[in-house]
């Protein structure tokens, strides 16, 4: 591989990261080639000792995407960071994707139950109040003295659970970023020694 091929492959592999960051990365390798050539080395020789552009690209992408996810909170950014980290090797498939699936499962379950509680509260409340007005008989096996406070109570509990789940989502987000950062440090150090 010569200089042009090496830089071309690298640039192709990191095309989805922000332009400025990409330019900065390519600048480093261009400089490396330039100085190497000044010292009398051959392009092919320099490219070979730099190693596989794929390995370099994976590392650069992962840390860059993680930086973005930290700056702008979005599920999409976090997902990209998780998948970039998973791409770093089989080891990560287990220690990143496993916990990520677990956390997502917990959040989905929490939101589902919070919504279910809210809806049941609303249903009991309105069922009691509006029930007599309907042509169809809505059967609520409670007297209105019990069911109205129960409906209000369940609605409030449901809404509070949704707010709680939202806070927990935020907390998990920060936690995931922290975990990915630590993971990236370990992985980068492992990779560097190959």
């Amino acid at each position, binding site marked *: 591989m010569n200089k042009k091929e090496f830089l071309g492959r690298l640039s192709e592999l990191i095309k989805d990261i922000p332009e400025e960051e990409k330019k*900065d*990365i390519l*600048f*480093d*390798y261009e*400089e*490396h080639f*330039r*100085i*190497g050539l*000044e010292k009398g080395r051959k392009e092919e020789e320099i490219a070979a*000792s*730099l*190693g*596989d*552009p794929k*390995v*370099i690209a994976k*590392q*650069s992408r992962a*840390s860059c995407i993680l*930086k973005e996810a930290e700056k702008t909170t979005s599920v999409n950014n976090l997902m990209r960071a998780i998948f970039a980290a998973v791409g770093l090797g089989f080891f990560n498939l287990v220690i990143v994707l496993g916990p990520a699936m677990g956390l997502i499962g917990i959040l989905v379950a929490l939101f589902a139950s919070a919504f279910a509680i809210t809806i049941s509260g609303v249903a009991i409340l309105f069922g009691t109040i509006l029930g007599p007005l309907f042509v169809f008989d809505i059967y609520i096996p409670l007297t209105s003295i019990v069911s109205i406070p129960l409906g209000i109570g369940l609605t409030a509990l449901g809404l509070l659970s949704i707010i709680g789940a939202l806070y927990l989502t935020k907390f998990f987000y920060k936690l995931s970023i922290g975990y990915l950062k630590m993971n*990236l*440090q*370990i992985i*980068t*150090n*492992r*990779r*560097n*020694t*190959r």
Partner: protein
Amino acid sequence: MNIQFKKGVLELCVLSMLERKVCYGYELVNEISKSISISEGTIYPLLRRLKSEEFVTTYLQESQEGPPRKYHKLTALGRKKEGELKKEWFTFAKDVNNFLKGSGKNE
């Protein structure tokens, strides 16, 4: 040398080199790969990480031979980190040495 031994030590080597002098990328890669066999390309992502963690700053400076080069300089935070890591390493190396010597005698 065993891969496991080198794992994690590269960061210390980069910081330690920068503690001695301000370097451009090629110089750093060249010096380190003289002592430790590494895939040279991966030093740059490491440098970028050290920069984003504010252990290192970079600036461009003209060179006699051609276009400006990117120099890497240790920050106060980086200097502190280097000291900590170095101390940790020496303690660790001493403990391992003592252990190896000790277990040699017992056999």
